[in-house]
């Protein structure tokens, strides 16, 4: 094996000459392109500032204590405030979480904690896990109006719950279920295997291990998932538009209809000329989303600080 001298073939020499001449052009190209990338980032920030700024500036004009504490009065001019819609939104958030959180967390625990268990149940469990994972993935990709359509078909018409809190809550629970399952799965995966083994080795049963060791360690991640779902419920409109009715009165029971904040914004924008009140409602919505983002940020920062401590 003899390696030839390749340092001075014609091609190599040509390449060397060319690259020296080409260098300036390449660096100019890089400068120009990076300038464009900076510009792109600036445009993104500007878009955010324009949208949020516009909604805030026009919206805050109509926000005052009265706006927040009086119920809407209906009519073409969108009289009244938003109080009942805030309460209805909170009702719906509570109801949906009450349904979806136990189901979602339970499903995630099953998917993660029982996946290694092949001896009891064996093949059945394994294929079930696959099917469920596929189901979660499919659910996450279904557009929300389809959930609405489904809720309308099943809960509103077939089960005759009518346009009601109950129908909306059930449809909404289906909508956020994949979010809760996914984030809980991720949270469970970050719990080190050694913790589980430590507990199991001490003679704890699997459930004791999960409830006393794994779940407490995964709580910040699970809360993040729940907060994401809260944000999703507050923002969602299409599902509730076709399941909740739209009455601006406060729902009396599970079978009365209602109107969430975002639904209220939609009605104000489409059916009235009260654009300023719609903007005010929009500002309230954005503020709640910012608050939720801040909470999530806080949790994840605490979480990563904790991880660093462990290492």
């Amino acid at each position, binding site marked *: 094996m003899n390696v030839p001298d390749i340092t001075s073939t014609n*091609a190599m020499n040509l390449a060397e000459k060319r690259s020296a001449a080409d260098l300036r052009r390449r660096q100019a190209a890089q400068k120009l392109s990076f300038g464009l990338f900076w510009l792109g980032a600036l445009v993104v920030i500007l878009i955010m500032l324009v949208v949020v700024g516009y909604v805030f500036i026009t919206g805050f004009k109509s926000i005052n204590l009265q706006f927040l504490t009086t119920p809407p009065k209906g009519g073409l001019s969108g009289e009244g405030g938003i109080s009942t819609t805030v309460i209805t939104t909170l009702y719906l958030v509570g109801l949906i979480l009450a349904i979806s959180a136990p189901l979602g967390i339970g499903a995630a625990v099953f998917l993660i904690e029982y996946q290694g268990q092949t001896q009891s149940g064996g093949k059945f469990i394994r294929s079930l896990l696959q099917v469920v994972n596929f189901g979660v993935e499919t659910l996450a990709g279904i557009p929300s109006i389809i959930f609405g359509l489904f809720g309308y078909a099943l809960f509103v018409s077939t089960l005759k719950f009518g346009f009601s809190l109950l129908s909306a809550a059930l449809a909404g629970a289906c909508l956020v279920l994949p979010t809760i399952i996914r984030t809980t799965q991720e949270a469970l995966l970050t719990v080190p295997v050694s913790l589980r083994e430590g507990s199991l080795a001490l003679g704890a049963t699997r459930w004791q291990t999960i409830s006393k060791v794994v779940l407490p360690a995964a709580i910040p991640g699970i809360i993040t998932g729940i907060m994401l779902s809260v944000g999703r419920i507050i923002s969602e409109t299409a599902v509730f538009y076709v399941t909740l009715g739209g009455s601006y009165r406060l729902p009396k029971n599970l079978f009365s209809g209602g109107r969430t904040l975002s639904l209220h914004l939609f009605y104000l924008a489409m059916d009235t000329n009260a654009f300023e009140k719609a903007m005010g409602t929009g500002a309230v919505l954005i503020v709640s989303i910012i608050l939720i983002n801040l909470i999530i940020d806080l949790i994840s920062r605490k979480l990563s600080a904790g991880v660093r401590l462990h290492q």
Partner: protein
Amino acid sequence: MNAIKLETHSYSLYYGKFRALEDISIEIPEKQVTAIIGPSGCGKSTFLRTFNRMNDLIPGVRTEGQALLDGEDIFSMDVVALRQRVGMVFQKPNPFPKSIYDNVAYGPRVNGIREKNVLDEIVETSLRGAALWNEVKDNLGKSGLALSGGQQQRLCIARALAVKPSVILMDEPAASLDPIATQRIEELIRQLVEHYTIVIVTHNMQQAGRVSDYTAFFFTDESRTGRLVEFNLTRKIFTNPQDKRTEDYITGRFG
């Protein structure tokens, strides 16, 4: 002794406040293999990466003192031009997920070579230079990732040769290879040194003894700051070390 290719004078490197390398002065001769040895964490790789400024990628890195290539200050050079003159082969073979041909042609192409015949010639000569041509000449379209570990590493060497560097830095190039592949890389290094200046970091002292003409011994203490303890002809370092720490390390008294 050959002309001096690479040199540093009172060179120190900091990660933020942490001093990783302190006061290193060395003169690395042209067209020789210089091995850098020492215990892990002594800054061998960091020092090697000084010569093609790969440390620039790490935020918060600051240097003091001088580092020169052919007598020119490395830090005032254009970094892209510098890296065309100083090639590098990494610890783990890292071919791009592209064909063998495209891997080798990558360097010339980013340098603006478009002509098929010129590229063909560069690819062939570079692969010959890395002693890989005969094994791959019928499969140039195959993914570089489909080669064996040793072949991948020679592909990475060919890829480095294709930009016509005068220096090749090697960061433990055989660390992830089996003994036979390692032997082929070592033979290749001995052949390449006829035309290139080679600096190789290795934790394997036998390897340093087999392939290098000169050896630099780096060491560190609890401070984790790396220092150059001794630099000399390899044969002198191995038979007659001047420093007690070098001797202890060579004879295996440190891990």
